[in-house]
């Protein structure tokens, strides 16, 4: 496999874009990434998206985007892995460019969610769960995470307020990211008082419903110096799966797909967790941050809450997470979130993260998780 680098990135703000369609958002993000790279050539397009059929009434999405961007007749495919779709689209591009099948591949993550009322979006998100044995029983995605959170609290004698530092950290970092949706800092008190979604999960445990698109241009590292911007190397790109149904795991509190994809990524990049300067974690719910930090080796089982309480996940901590707001603070346009994480990783590694900059960062990890931990895509990027 050839080594692959990211030579350009672009993003729209994450927001409730009532005046923008999925087509508009896609075109904006791709134009921004191509301008950033300063490279005209595109050989293939991989679109990470979860719900265009359900919420935008549009499948064949990659063809639509290629057409709208004037990229016909290039190869264009939609990549779907639930909330991990954005990360999976970069994975597909890395396989395509790494293998030599293509030289310049565009990655887009896009989602348009806010045209619909909350109950429809809640149902759409549950499509990532088992349709017959979870979703059909009215078990929402928040409920699955509520089940995990209560069990975690039971096994590790934790209180709900112990999860507050994750949400507080996400909002604090989002305040420094001009593209983030929730830029108002919150306190632990705000967290405790937030309305319940699926007990014990409340609103401030949960990433919000929103729209957005983010794009990256990928090329062989040997060609990467042709771009305008300093290239960022893809040191690892991995994907692993676990049972679709949460209850079918030997231990639901062990996120094995996350652990497997992280372990494979550390091996590929020849690094250890302590070498990672910052981690764009998939904080769709605070309990997900906890379970992924433990599965990825940043904390021992039952100790991730302590990591957060000690401030070690903050920008100035030893393992900063969600440095530009994460899913919670930046917003979680589900199929686009993985692409946003990767764009933010690139900005950090180029030293362009502004007020959210992690000083001296040279190795970053981004991880997208789909379903209740049933698919995980991990990338390690290096300056």
């Amino acid at each position: 496999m050839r080594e692959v680098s990211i030579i350009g990135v672009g993003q729209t703000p994450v927001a409730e874009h009532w005046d923008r369609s999925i087509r508009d958002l896609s075109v904006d993000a791709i134009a921004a990434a191509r301008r950033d790279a300063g490279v005209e050539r595109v050989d293939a397009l991989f679109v990470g998206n979860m719900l265009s059929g359900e919420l935008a009434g549009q499948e064949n999405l990659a063809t639509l985007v290629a057409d709208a961007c004037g990229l016909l007749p290039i190869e264009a495919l939609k990549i779907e892995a639930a909330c991990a779709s954005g990360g999976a689209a970069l994975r597909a591009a890395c396989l395509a460019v790494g293998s030599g099948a293509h030289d310049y591949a565009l990655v887009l993550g896009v989602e348009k969610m806010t045209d619909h009322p909350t109950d429809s979006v809640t149902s759409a998100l549950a499509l990532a769960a088992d349709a017959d044995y979870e979703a059909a029983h009215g078990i929402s995605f928040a409920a699955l995470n509520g089940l995990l959170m209560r069990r975690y609290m039971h096994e590790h004698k934790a209180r709900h307020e112990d999860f507050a530092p994750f949400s507080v950290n996400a909002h604090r970092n989002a305040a420094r990211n001009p593209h983030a949706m929730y830029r108002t800092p919150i306190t632990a008190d705000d967290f405790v008082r937030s309305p319940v979604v699926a007990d014990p999960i409340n609103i401030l445990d949960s990433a919000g419903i929103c729209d957005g698109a983010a794009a990256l241009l990928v090329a062989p590292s040997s060609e990467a110096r042709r771009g305008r911007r300093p290239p960022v190397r893809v040191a690892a790109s991995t994907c692993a799966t676990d049972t679709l149904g949460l209850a079918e795991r030997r231990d639901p509190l062990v996120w094995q797909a996350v652990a497997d994809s992280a372990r494979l990524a550390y091996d590929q990049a020849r690094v250890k967790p302590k070498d990672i300067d910052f981690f764009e974690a998939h904080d769709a719910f605070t309990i997900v941050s906890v379970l992924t930090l433990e599965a990825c080796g940043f904390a021992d089982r039952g100790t991730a809450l302590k990591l957060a309480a000690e401030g070690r996940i903050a920008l100035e901590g030893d393992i900063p997470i969600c440095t530009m707001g994460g899913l919670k603070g930046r917003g979680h346009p589900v199929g686009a979130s993985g692409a946003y994480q990767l764009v933010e990783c690139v900005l950090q590694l180029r030293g362009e993260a502004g007020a959210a900059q992690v000083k001296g960062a040279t190795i970053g990890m981004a991880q997208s998780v789909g379903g209740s931990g049933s698919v995980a895509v991990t990338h390690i990027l290096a300056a």
Partner: protein
Amino acid sequence: MELPRYHRLRGAYYRLEGSACSACDRRFFPPRPVCPSCKSQGLGTFAFSGRGTLYSWSRVVQPPHGFASIAPYDVGMVRLEEGPLVTAQLADTEGVALEIGMPVEMVTRTIQDAEEHGYIVYGYKFRPLLRPGGTAGP
């Protein structure tokens, strides 16, 4: 739920039928075509007793489409006495202090009302096991 799909699910929904691997003696709910342990195919049907204990629970306040009429409602993960965990709605929880580890049993209830398709979808839920005195608990 579409009628053919409901028809296919009737064994699992009405009788809590999962599958059993004769090669390695593991049991699964929901039913599986291939044993994840020993990779045997052609697993047999196995009906679970419906008895178990509560592994975790959550109260759904913000329901998905089609469940607003029963919200808020309780859902749980139940450790069946034969081993597997199952995720389901909890029934008859009003006035019961739910606790992890409490005994529960399967009951057949309405899973989806008739609003969308004109027929009711019935299936398993779990309720706290009743003591002779009428209160829940061990």
